């Protein structure tokens, strides 16, 4: 199973990319653990999680080919 991860702003800076494919991750808690393992500085950043463009709270079970976006604080307007 794989999901597409989208990163923006501070988090894109942190991981050096705006998108990546992550394999063998079944839920958002596992995704965040994986990202922390790659760079634990993510723990200092604020963000919300959007799964398939819908902002979600709590642990979300992911499906194959889901798109997960980590969204730092917004700055529109």
């Amino acid at each position: 199973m794989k999901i597409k991860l989208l990163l923006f702003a501070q988090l894109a800076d942190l991981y050096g990319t705006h998108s990546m494919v992550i394999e063998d991750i079944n839920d958002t808690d596992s995704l965040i653990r994986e990202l922390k393992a790659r760079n634990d500085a993510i723990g200092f950043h604020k963000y919300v999680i959007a799964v398939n463009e819908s902002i979600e709270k709590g642990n979300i079970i992911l499906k194959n080919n889901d798109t997960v976006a980590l969204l730092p604080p917004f700055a529109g307007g």
Partner: protein
Amino acid sequence: MDKKKTKKKVFVDGPVSPEFIANSIAKHSTKKNIGAHAIFLGQVREDIKDDKPVQHIEYSAYNEMAENVFHEIREEAFATYDLNCMHIYHSLGKVNAGEICLFVFVSSKHRDASFEACRTIVEDIKNKVPIFGKEVTGDEDYTWKENI
């Protein structure tokens, strides 16, 4: 303008020009059932970050989601307020301090609907749309803007 239809294009490259704003106003003179317009312009402010003035903001967005959220904001405003017309434009890319990055333009028969809808739309944009802003203060220096 059309209510409840397909998604409108909101993002523009670079700043919204004063000429564009004036032309938008002029185009509505043919709509004789409008009695009031409310317009909000967001301008890039020369804030001080790390003791340096912001020269420009580079706007980026989760484009697909942002367009859907703008559409929802439009639909909700049309459903809530008695509006004749609504236009929303937001910049992507570089906008210098002093230039316009957001143009919200609502029209109605009477002023109450326009005043209230405009405020609601602006607050919704700031709270709900995944747009990001890099506040650039020098060649290599920047901070990420956070709405309050």
